[in-house]
Every structure is written in structure tokens, then in C-alpha cells.
């Protein structure tokens, strides 16, 4: 065991040398720049993270952050709609953007010498977006199609959306990131204009660059393109802290589907909200004990052992901006009832509360964390994502360097303690997807012709 451990430590130190160090800068207008060197390939990833997402929204305006993300490609004072994408494409680049509860981020992957192309375009759309009615009308249709594709016609996504809206009472984590359809229908261009002015400013943004670059050169470029931008007065959103949950909650989602689905969540602290900062790391380990690898408890006991689930998983994110959920989910095996599956997942929770996890299990989780820490460095995009996610919720990027040590410090007693404290009935919400028949009688638009499935 000792031998193995020293090999791990060696592996880590080699990795740090290969991957280079992180450099952090602040421009005079408040923009933060984080640069990480990785010289393995002549490429660079450039990301701009804005501290705004669906958890900054409130009832009636859900989906605004995500819609604004779409509009960021629809023209500025200097570039016509769609030109951003054309310029990146002609530079051999790959680009995309994503919105979550806590952030909105934009990225380009480029050959290393093309970084100025990214900075010029990103700086331009940080302050100069046009937001015109014609593009807005069309793009709103696209977003509605996206909602239909990703949520309306996806029984498990629909279940999660309803689940989150019940699990949280006041917390803005109840908002679907893509927005409720009715909110999209009633969104106006002026809403977006206000949202853009309020959040898209250098002092509310973090630029992350990872790749085959020299940090000082990146700083020079950042000063050239971003420093002329004027900051805004940023008023943080109201906390809307979730009140204590006073008992279990349960919903049923009935939609046309073939396979039932179970989702269970427990309110759990995150690094930003935890009184005891070891607790989120213990919850991470707990998640690993349940679902870290094919030898972890859910697969071993519920899928292979009792064979009551076709699949089962656990999820927890310690880097959320606000108190979140520790999630368990599962799909029952063919002949298994939802009650049996739910009882089996509860039994797994109870075992974690009743007895400490074994040394061998703990060692397996830690071994995977140590190895993953090396594997992650194979992706420059992944490295940039880690930095951006932390910085955009107001955590320091350097926490990622502490992660392995913090996980290694977690004890079996601490895992048992967080299971007893947080995976309890009073903090629980359960959602059950109960399939309706997939025939025409249950189609979503009753006005449509009611004939059977047919092929012609």
C-alpha cells in the first residue's frame, strides 16, 4: 500500500511539471484573466465566462440568460449576424457556448497563433452587441425548438425539470436553464437588452486561456482587446435562500414513455455554503462509494447483485454556487416495480448511515481520484473548464489543486457522518416517471388527428 501511494505522489508531481502552472491577472477594468500553459500540442482554448445563469433569474424571466447566449452570435456594431462563426470557422477554429445555473460561457479552440482572433471578437461582443428584433424573433424560435428537442420530448429531462421545481421552494435552482415555455413565449427584446447591460461587463467576466501560450503574451493581448472596455456596477442577485425543508416531497410525472425512471434528491451543502468545509469533500467520496466506477455499490449491489435496476447512478457537485442536491437515480429492471427499486436505493443509503465504508472501498475511490487527476490533463478543454467553473461561482481556481489532498483526507467516519446528516427523509424529494402509453390518444396536442402509430 505504501509503495503504491508513493507511486501516486510521483505521478502527480510529474504531471504538474508537464502541465505547467497557472497565472492569474486582473485588468484595470476588473476583468480577470487566468492562463494555464500546456505545450503538448500547438493549440489554445480561449473561454469567456460570465457570472450569470438561470440561478440569477426569477419567475417570469426564466431562460433569459440562455436566450442571450444565443443572441451573442447575432451581430454587433462591428460584425454582422453570423459573422462571428464565419470568422472562427475560416481560422480553422471550433466554437460553442453553454449556459448553466451559475454561468454563461463562450469558447473557441484554435491553432495557437490565432488567439488574437478570439480576443478581438469576444471583446467586441462583450459590450457592443446589437440585439435586433429580426434576429431575436428568429432565434427565439430556435430556442423553442431546442426546448422541444431537449426537454419536451425527453421523458427523463422533463422529469428532472419538474423535480427541481418541487425540490426547491425559493432557491433559484428551481428554474430550468432553458426557461419555461410560457416564459419564452412572453420574453421581449427589452428584457434581453436589460439583462445584457446588467451582466455583460469586464468586471463580471473571467477569461480563461489554456494551451501552447506564453502567459505574459496573453496578458498583453488581453490588455489590448479587453482593457478599453468600460466596467458596470454589478448588483448581485438576491440570495433567495432556501428555507429549511420540513418533510419529504414526492411527485409523479405522467407522460408517454416506454420505461419508468426514479429520481431522488437530498438537499446538501456545497463548498460555498458549507459550515464545515470537509463536508462537501465527504459527500464527493460518498458519491464515489455509490457510483465511482463499475465496482461501486450501486452497480455492484443494485444492478448486478439484487438485479432490481437496469442502471443506477449518484451525482453531486461540490462547486455549485448555492446549496444543491445529492442525487440518486435509477431505471428499474424489466420485472421490477418502482417500489422495489426505491426501497433498494433507500437500503443503500441506510447502509451508509449504519456502518462506515470499508477501508478497501475508500482506497478504491481515492485511487480513482488520483488517477483521474492525471487523465484530466489530457484535455486542454477540460482543464480550462475546471478553472472557469470555479472562478465563475466565486471560488478560487487553486481549489482544483487541493482536490486530491482534500479527498485523501476524508475518513470513513466523515462519510458516515454526512450520510446521517444529509441523506435523510426531511431533506428528500422523489420524482417518479410513470409512463403513459405511447399511442396517439396520449399525444401532447389533443387537437391533432387521433389515429394509431402507422407506417406508410
Amino acid at each position, binding site marked *: 500500500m505504501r509503495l503504491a501511494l508513493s*507511486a501516486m505522489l510521483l505521478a502527480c508531481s510529474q504531471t504538474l511539471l508537464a*502541465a505547467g502552472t497557472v497565472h492569474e491577472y486582473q485588468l484595470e477594468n476588473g476583468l480577470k484573466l487566468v492562463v494555464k500553459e500546456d505545450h503538448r500540442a*500547438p*493549440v489554445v482554448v480561449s473561454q469567456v465566462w460570465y457570472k450569470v445563469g438561470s440561478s440569477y433569474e426569477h419567475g417570469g424571466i426564466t431562460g433569459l440568460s440562455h436566450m442571450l*447566449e*444565443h443572441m451573442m*452570435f447575432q451581430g454587433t456594431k462591428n460584425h454582422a449576424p*453570423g459573422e462571428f*462563426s*464565419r470568422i472562427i*470557422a*475560416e481560422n*480553422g477554429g471550433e*466554437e*460553442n*457556448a*453553454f449556459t*448553466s445555473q451559475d454561468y454563461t460561457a463562450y469558447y473557441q479552440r484554435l*491553432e*495557437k497563433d*490565432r488567439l488574437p482572433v478570439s480576443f478581438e471578437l469576444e471583446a467586441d461582443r462583450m459590450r457592443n452587441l446589437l440585439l435586433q428584433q429580426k434576429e431575436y424573433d*428568429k432565434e427565439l424560435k430556435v*430556442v*423553442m*425548438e*431546442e426546448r422541444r*428537442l431537449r426537454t*419536451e*420530448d*425527453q*421523458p427523463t*429531462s422533463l422529469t*428532472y425539470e419538474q423535480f427541481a421545481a418541487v425540490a426547491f421552494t425559493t432557491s433559484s435552482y428551481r428554474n430550468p436553464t432553458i426557461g419555461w415555455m410560457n416564459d419564452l413565449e412572453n420574453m421581449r427584446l427589452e428584457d434581453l437588452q436589460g439583462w445584457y447591460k446588467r451582466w455583460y461587463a469586464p468586471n463580471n467576466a473571467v477569461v480563461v486561456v489554456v494551451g501552447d501560450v506564453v502567459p505574459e503574451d496573453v496578458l498583453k493581448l488581453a490588455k489590448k482587446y479587453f482593457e478599453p472596455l468600460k466596467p458596470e456596477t454589478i448588483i448581485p442577485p438576491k440570495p433567495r435562500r432556501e428555507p429549511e425543508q420540513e418533510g419529504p416531497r414526492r411527485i409523479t410525472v405522467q407522460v408517454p414513455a*416506454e*420505461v419508468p425512471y426514479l429520481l431522488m434528491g437530498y438537499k446538501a451543502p456545497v463548498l460555498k455554503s458549507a459550515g464545515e468545509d470537509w463536508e462537501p469533500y465527504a459527500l464527493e467520496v460518498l458519491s464515489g462509494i455509490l457510483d465511482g*466506477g*463499475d465496482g461501486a455499490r450501486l452497480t*455492484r449491489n443494485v444492478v*448486478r447483485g439484487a438485479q432490481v435496476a437496469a442502471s443506477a447512478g449518484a*451525482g453531486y*457537485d461540490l462547486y455549485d454556487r448555492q446549496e*444543491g442536491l445529492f442525487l440518486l437515480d435509477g*431505471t428499474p429492471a*424489466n420485472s421490477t416495480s418502482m417500489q422495489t427499486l426505491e426501497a433498494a436505493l433507500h437500503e443503500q443509503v441506510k447502509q451508509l448511515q449504519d456502518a462506515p465504508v470499508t477501508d*478497501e472501498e475508500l482506497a478504491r475511490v481515492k485511487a*480513482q481520484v488520483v488517477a*483521474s487527476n*492525471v*487523465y484530466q490533463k*489530457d484535455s486542454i478543454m477540460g482543464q480550462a473548464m475546471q478553472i472557469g467553473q470555479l472562478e465563475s461561482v466565486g471560488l478560487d481556481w487553486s481549489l482544483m489543486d487541493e482536490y486530491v489532498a482534500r479527498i485523501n483526507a476524508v475518513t470513513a467516519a466523515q462519510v458516515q457522518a454526512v450520510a446521517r446528516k444529509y441523506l435523510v427523509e426531511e431533506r428528500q424529494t422523489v420524482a417518479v416517471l410513470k409512463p403513459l402509453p*405511447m*399511442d396517439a390518444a396520449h*399525444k*401532447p*396536442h389533443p387537437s*391533432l388527428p387521433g389515429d394509431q*402509430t*402507422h*407506417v*406508410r
Partner: protein
Amino acid sequence: MCADQLKRIVRTGTVLLFISLFVSGVAQAMPAIQHWTTENGAGVYFVPAPELPMVDVRVVFAAGSSHDAALPGLAGLTNGLLDQGAAGLSADAIAERLDGLGAQLGSGSLRDMAWVSLRSLNDAEHFDPAVDLMVKVLSQPDFNPQDIDRERERTLVALRQSEQQPDDIAEYHYFKALYGQHPYASRPIGTEASLKRITRGDIKAFHDNYYVAANATIAIVGDIDRPGAERLARRLSAALPAGKPAAPLPVVEPLTKASEEHVFHPSTQTHVMMGAPGISRTDPDFFPLYVGNYILGGGGLVSRLNEEIREKRGLSYSVSSAFLPMAQAGPFTLGLQTRNDQLDEALRVLRETLQRFHDQGPTEKELVAAKKNITGGFALRIDSNSKIVEYLAVIGFYGLPLDYLETFNDKVMAVTREQVRDAFRRRVHPDLMATVIVGGNQ
């Protein structure tokens, strides 16, 4: 895990069903590929990458669903069972050992190929036992009856899940329409009747026939030297019987008439897949068709289809076209999804856009822009070990030349407007396409 998937929304994500592994480029950053053949016939493809203390290994076999014969789902079930018990070790024992080493063992199968992959730290304490497990899984799977039954049941649940996904339903009908009696028509996940019929003997025979050295390609990337890579390849290969390469698949017959199939599904959107058998990996028209398709619908947010369907009309979140070159002619496909009542308009614009491109070809400006993207982005496609090891496996599996990557950009640059127009006219026939429509309004 589930939370991450459910919480984040990505903007552009075009239809990823038809990604081609070979997207482009000149090998400016890629070290030369080292190639040799093991004593019992496995081709080895190796690129050293000493920067990170880890190794990726991928062993690929011609053992995909196109070899299912009368038992759809056999290739997938066999592949999925490999690590569910081997050399007397239970699934739990294998999984616990791998987890304890921090090693990641993966497996999967498509229509042409099936594979097992390993990612491990490269020091002997981790690497040797991890490779030992990979060898056992590849060469001595136990196929215990209780494991077969469980995995069969799980596959049946997955099959039912795919029946609630309009995109999966469309893909199933689409391949049937394109490939008729050809093995590519077979659904990789299988059918309920077939999955219930597959016996241990079928699985064992499939493994004996296809998981053999002469049918294997071994790709290695990572912090390992040439002698180490040779030892590794020998170890993996020697555990397998020499065997024979899989028999070549039959040639795909072109479609002789257009077809349109409507499948009801209680969804708010209608999914459309339209196309025909396209090209194989070694097709002489590959480059003009590849470059042309980038302009038509392969270039993400800047393609003609995206411009007409999404940017001008807001009809679809994701619209694209793609050639998927396979061992035999893989599909050329156009796809979109739109609100049920917009189907007619979306279909009309899709067909008109294809027809116009087919008749007129690209403009000079479009061709220049396409070449700039394809050649200028090469470094991105090989910027990680995980990407390089997949490239090596594809080069080996399809027998592409070792300088395929080095010469790629030159071949792209040599493509002319006339070649694109000529290749599309000869190889793409808008009036001989199958159209599959899945949704709630028909």
C-alpha cells in the same frame, strides 16, 4: 453524473449521430506513426506521448453488428459481456481491481467494429495489473449464464428506452430503408425476439470467431517506449488465437427509387432523416465529397443548411448533413427536427437546399472558406492522447495509409469546384433518397 447532464445546455450541438472520425488535416504536431504486426497477425499502431504519465490502449476487431447474421444484437451483447466475468474472476472482482488501480476499461461496438480500451497510469504497479485484466477480458471471458441473462435483460430495457426517443426510432427505420437485406440494416442494439433467442453458444462462437489476432488492430498512445509497446502488443495478441480476419461485407446496392416513411410518435417535434448509401472509407471521391459536404451541411453553424433552416427561418435547433464512410458504403444523411406543424416547410427547404447544391456546386468563396477551416483546424483534432488513439485505431482498422494524416491537407487543398460538383452529381441523387419522418403530426 445525471445532474451534470441535466443542468447544462449547449448551444450549437449539431446532430452528432454521423460524426466522421476523420475530420481533417496536416500532421504538423503528430509524431510519425510506428507500425508493426505481431507474430500471430495483429496490426499494431503506436505513437509515443511522454508528456503525461499514462497510457491509452485500444484493441479493435471487425466484430460489429454487421456480423450479427441472423441474430441482431449478438455483437453488442458479446462485447458488453467481456468484462462481466473472465478467467474465473467475477464482474465484481474485475471492476473492483480496476477501480483500485484507477484504471478505466471501456468497450463498445458499432456496425463495423467492436473494441476494448484501457487507460491507465504508466508505472508498473498500476499498469501491469491493469493490462493483465484487459488480457483476461479480451481472451478469456467466462460468459456465465447468470451474467448473460442479466445483460440480456438490461439490453432489453435499453431497447425499450430507445423506443421512446424519436431520434433513435428514426435511425432504426432509416437504416432499414437504406440497407434492406444488407447487414448494415440490422439494429446494433438488436430486436426483442433476437435478444431473447441468443444462447451462450451463440455468444461463445461469436467471440471465438471474431476476437482473434488476425481480426485485431492494436492502437497504443502514451508514456511508453518502443520496447514497452512491443511487449504490450505481444501480450495482448498472444492471448488471442491467431484465427482469421472477418470475411468482407457484401457490397451495398444503391437505392433504385425514392421512398418516404412516416412513423407516428407522440412528440412535439418531427424528426427527419433523409439520404442514401454514400461512400466507403477508401472511396476515390472521398475528398471532393467531404469538402463539398462541409459547405452543404457539415460545417456546423456556417453551412448552407444551417443558414437556410436555422439562421434564416428558425425552423430547427440542429440541422446538418454528413457522409459516414464505413467498410462498405456508409450513409450520406441530412437530418433536422422541427415543431410538428412546420414539417412541410422544413422538408421543402431541406430538399431545395440539397438540390441547389447538387445542381450548382459551391461558389469559389465557399470552397476557399471550407479549405481554410478544414486545413487550419488540423492541430485541434490531434491535441490529446484520447483523440490520437482513436485515429490510430481507425487507420489500422480500415487499412488507411500511414501517411493518411500527413497528406490530408494537401488532398483537401487540391479539391476544385468542378470536382465537388462532379462528385455530387455522380454520387448524390436527390431523387433517389429515402426519407424517414418520425413525429406527432402525421
